């Protein structure tokens, strides 16, 4: 059994050495891309079974985003939906024999968290402008600037460690049990691993949505005052 924190190079492509998680990631990307292109090639007003199932998936993701962010899901659907579906597939790719989930390696998780980090900045700037985004660090008071800056880093770091720790510990435990006891013993653990993988994919996507929503709503000018006035108006 190899140590969980190291990555062995699988083959070298010129000066770049390619490891197994990268190959699995490419395969998943190709699968998702080809699947989406093939499935959405013939969209009709009267949906086929496949199209109905896809619409259900998209509508579920839309509903979750609407609930969490309190905003129309249009601009965020692509990013958060792709994050969720990719991490779900990556976590469940351990079902295939010989494939180790790429999310069980620190590098993949770091890349995903970096995407979330950049997306928060991008969506914050797009919603409130550069000044509004910078102002979101001074919410609720100016005293919070250092804490907000630290939080921006630590929450990305905890995204990395959470996904990595959960998926890797699942793989690791199965490896240990497999080396101790033979044939059918690891199956319940694998089932638990599937559940953990689904929950972690969901949580990663939800936290990305929460971070984006938080940045957008904090940078909005006088968000708190607007809330108070609207509350006063409603009765």
């Amino acid at each position, binding site marked *: 059994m190899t*140590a*969980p*924190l*190291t990555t062995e190079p699988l083959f070298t492509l010129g000066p770049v050495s390619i490891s197994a998680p990268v190959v699995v990631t490419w395969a998943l990307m190709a699968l998702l891309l080809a699947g989406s292109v093939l499935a959405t090639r013939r969209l009709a007003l009267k949906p086929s079974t496949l199209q109905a199932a896809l619409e259900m998936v998209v509508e579920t993701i839309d509903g*979750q985003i609407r*609930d*969490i962010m309190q905003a129309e899901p249009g601009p965020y659907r692509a990013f958060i939906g792709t994050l969720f579906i990719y991490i779900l597939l990556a976590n469940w790719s351990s079902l295939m024999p010989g494939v180790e989930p790429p999310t069980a390696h620190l590098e993949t998780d770091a890349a995903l968290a970096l995407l979330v980090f950049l997306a928060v900045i991008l969506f914050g700037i797009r919603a409130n402008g550069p000044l509004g985004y910078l102002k979101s660090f001074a919410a609720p008071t100016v005293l919070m600037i250092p804490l907000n800056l630290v939080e921006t880093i630590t929450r990305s770091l*905890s995204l990395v*460690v*959470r996904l*990595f*720790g*959960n998926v*890797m*510990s699942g793989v690791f435990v199965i490896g240990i049990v497999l080396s101790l006891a033979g044939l059918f013993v690891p199956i319940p653990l694998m089932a638990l691993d599937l559940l953990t993988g689904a*929950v*972690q994919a*969901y*949580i990663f996507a*939800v*936290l990305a949505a*929460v971070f984006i929503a938080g940045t957008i709503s904090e940078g909005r000018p006088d968000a708190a005052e607007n809330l108070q006035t609207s509350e006063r108006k409603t009765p």
Partner: protein
Amino acid sequence: MNWLAFASILGAALAVSFGAIGPALAEGRAVASALDAIARQPEAASTISRTLFVGLAMIETTAIYCLVVALLLLFANPFV
């Protein structure tokens, strides 16, 4: 017997065992409160369980940190 390796293994075991206590108690409390809330208001079950999942993930992170520290000590120890 290499004392540094001994200390690393002991440190890893201590990190996981004591690091798991706090999150276990906290998760138990969180789930109990969520079940209480769902029993009172079954119509809010979806919102409560979503919040519960996110909260549990947050709490669990502390235990995962301990696990990662233990694995660092065991497999990527910079001093051994």
